[in-house]
């Protein structure tokens, strides 16, 4: 398929999670921004708890440096990863009011840093990753503040969850019931995983995602109106720039066909994150692939 010039298309970005094995040891925040700039990958995802020094109260000096770096490397702040840590205190769950406070604190900071989408990770109560029972309550409570601070809370739909599932239905129901533009979805492309790499490619201390059912790519289509950002999850790029586990060509072409123009932020979750330069090279290869499929 040849992609038409001028047509609305997904855009490229990077989740700094990809560089987790290097951050603080061999790469600084500026190094990661420089990488993005080299790749023409403008869309940025940070994790608040990882990448904001002094979180949740960064210094004025840090904020000024943030503004300088965003400008210098021509970065678009896209998605701000944060958590409602429901098991923050041992022995009990956060109340709706505590969860609300935790959300609003991040709305303000995300807004200050220029982000408009939040990857909002909710606490879970069981092995099926069912969200805490009071999630509707504190999310609804927070919607007016989300509007005020111009942010969209997006739970991440992540394997083993399927796109056709009660969890996704529940989230969509809340959106439709409230008509809100401030709650949506982040789809992690890991839900489309059709292959795995051999276990032998992983190191002894690395977490291997267990195999699970996957969703067909077309299941994303009805959800697209609610999808504000995607995690372009990947596990291994071959030397000829193919991803080995996820049907990228189908995914990206589906997004193009349906005029989805949000950011796909590369999220590397393969082996050897601790080997200096390895994840960096993998992300570069990932962008060579995405650029080719996008016809950039």
């Amino acid at each position, binding site marked *: 398929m040849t992609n038409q010039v001028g047509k609305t298309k997904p855009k490229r970005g990077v989740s700094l*999670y990809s560089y*987790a094995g290097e*951050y*603080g*040891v*061999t790469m600084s925040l500026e190094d990661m921004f420089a990488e993005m700039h080299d790749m023409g990958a403008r869309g940025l995802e940070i*994790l608040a*708890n*990882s990448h*904001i*020094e*002094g*979180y*949740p109260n960064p210094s004025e000096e840090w904020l000024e440096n943030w503004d300088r770096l965003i400008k210098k490397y021509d970065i678009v702040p896209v998605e701000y990863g944060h*958590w*409602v*840590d*429901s*098991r*923050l*205190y*041992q022995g009990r769950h956060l109340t709706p009011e505590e969860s609300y406070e935790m959300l609003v604190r991040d709305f303000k900071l995300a807004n200050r840093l220029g982000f408009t989408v939040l990857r909002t*990770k*909710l*606490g*879970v*109560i*069981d*092995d099926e*990753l069912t969200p805490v029972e009071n999630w509707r309550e504190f999310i609804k409570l927070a919607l007016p503040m989300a509007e005020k601070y111009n942010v969209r809370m997006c739970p991440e739909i992540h394997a083993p969850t399927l796109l056709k599932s009660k969890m996704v239905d529940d989230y969509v129901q809340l959106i439709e019931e409230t008509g809100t533009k401030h709650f949506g979805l982040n789809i992690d492309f890991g839900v489309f995983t059709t292959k795995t790499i051999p276990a032998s490619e992983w190191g002894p201390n690395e977490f291997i995602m267990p195999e699970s059912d996957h969703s067909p790519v077309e299941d994303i289509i009805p959800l697209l109106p609610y999808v504000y950002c995607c995690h372009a999850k990947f596990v291994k790029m071959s030397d000829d720039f193919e991803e080995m586990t996820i049907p990228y060509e189908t995914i990206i072409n589906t997004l193009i066909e349906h005029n989805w123009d949000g950011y796909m932020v590369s999220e590397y979750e393969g082996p050897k994150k*601790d080997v200096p330069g390895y994840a960096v090279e993998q992300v570069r290869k990932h962008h060579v692939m995405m650029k080719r499929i996008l016809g950039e």
Partner: protein
Amino acid sequence: MLERPCIQSRGFKNVESHGKVIGFQVNIRSLYYRGLWLSQLRPATVTVDGETFSGDQITWTINDVTYTQAEMAELGDVHWGLLEPATLTVAKEGGLESGSHEIEVNYTYSCSYFPPVVDTILGGTHKRTLILV
């Protein structure tokens, strides 16, 4: 920059108070990919050359503020960031001798977006041999 292992060699030294050596310090960094609220942490133990210290024998210093482990359980709004090594101060009269020491640090932490069972699994034991001058 930080050293790659959890247990850092920089910062390993005896500590004095009023001219008496009252213990030793070792710095650790978090190997988890995101920072932690202090109340997410479960109390650490430190073992040096086979001798184990725990509970109120250990304090944590983060960003120049020192906390007892009992205090930490209640601190849901103080954050241990990835770029900030935590200094564990271990009460041991006379401190450690100049030379080589086997250090082990153990702690776990809660992670609300994983099933509750992981709260006592994530983290674990870190070991390193350090040289005290």
